[in-house]
């Protein structure tokens, strides 16, 4: 950095002194901590990959693998299962039906409670709490319009960039919902942060949302648009057109 010519003598002296201010050396365990964090992260990524599909396939394979040594066991289990099914299908038990209704009612109440908790946590002033709230959407079996609207509002107006990014990730998971897709397209013009703009561009490509091209073109007209973001948007328009 060149010394500013407009500085007076004292300012020049301070500028020089700043260059001589000592900076601490990294402690020896800093590198160890970094590698531990990296290893943990890699393990998490591997776990996710493994647990998602291959484990499911393996288990499915195991269940359907026919083992001759277990012939008798298979036969007995099949007979017992068909007996049980036949018993319940033939004689509907009033108590069992009532219990089933209770369970359904209870689970829908739990669902409502989770939804309420999530909506109120989104209003929390602490970003960490709002992040938690967004992550709760994954636990909701059914996401209704109220939740979607709350998430879209968070995406468009939360002051914390990380919260907005996590919200975007959650909304991408709900990409089949037309309301979500429409909301994401509309959000393009409301975002100022380059990170979120880029993440939204990725999302549009992922969801193959061609309606966003018009919004992207409008965004390109914006003054002060980050150079890198501009490049990304141009690429996205090419992919989607």
């Amino acid at each position, binding site marked *: 950095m060149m010394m500013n010519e407009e500085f007076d003598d004292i300012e020049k002296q301070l500028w020089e002194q700043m260059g001589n201010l000592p900076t601490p050396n990294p402690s020896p365990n800093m590198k160890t901590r970094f590698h531990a964090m990296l290893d943990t992260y890699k393990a998490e990524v591997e776990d996710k990959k493994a647990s998602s599909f291959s484990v499911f396939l393996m288990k499915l394979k195991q269940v359907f693998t026919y083992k001759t040594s277990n012939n008798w066991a298979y036969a007995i289990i099949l007979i017992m299962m068909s007996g049980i099914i036949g018993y319940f299908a033939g004689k509907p038990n009033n108590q069992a039906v009532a219990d089933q209704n209770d369970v359904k009612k209870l689970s829908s109440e739990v669902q409502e409670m989770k939804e309420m908790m999530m909506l109120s946590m989104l209003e929390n002033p602490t970003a960490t709490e709002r992040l938690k709230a967004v992550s709760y959407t994954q636990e909701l079996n059914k996401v209704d319009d109220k939740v979607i609207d709350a998430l879209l509002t968070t995406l468009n107006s939360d002051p914390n*960039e990380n919260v907005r990014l996590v919200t975007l990730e959650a909304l991408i998971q709900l990409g089949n919902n037309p309301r979500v897709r429409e909301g994401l397209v509309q959000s393009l013009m409301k975002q100022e942060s380059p990170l979120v703009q880029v993440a939204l561009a*990725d999302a549009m490509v992922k969801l193959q949302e061609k309606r966003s091209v018009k919004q992207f073109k409008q965004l390109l007209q914006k003054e002060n648009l980050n150079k890198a973001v501009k490049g990304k948007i141009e690429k996205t328009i090419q992919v989607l057109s």
Partner: protein
Amino acid sequence: MLKVKTGDLDKMGLLFERYHRALLAFFYHSTGQSAHSEDLVQTVFYRMLKYRHTFIENGEFRTWMYHLARNVLNDSIKKNHRMSYQSDMTSMSEQAFTEPSADKQLEKKQEHENLHAALAKLSSEHREVLVLSRFQDLSYNEIADILQTTEGNIKVKVHRAMKELKSIYLKEMI
């Protein structure tokens, strides 16, 4: 970073080797606390992994890195609800001047302490431009990209920051 983005996470080790000292200096001169700064550096590398998909192919890595670092710093200040700058400079100065010393070294130590005290009192906006320009050796153009403003605006900010620093420093001396 592009390799990290495409899944070669081991390459993050190279980025750590190259940039951890610069990031440590950024946080140390922004917060005045060395141990806390190491935690913040760790958080930046974690976020690089987590948000690697947001890195743009033709983008400048340093700009993206300082963008994340600024967010980490702001989050930390909000989270801790305390003064953004608490200097442990005294121990640093002692560390730097433990060599057999003459009066001159003592004088220099005093100068550094005064300057650190003045930096601590500087507004966070002005401290940020000074840290980026003086301690990170970034050009005005790069700083403008990080702060999403124009190069001219950064020049003005640095100029004003130096005026404010001088005024605080001179008050400290009295």
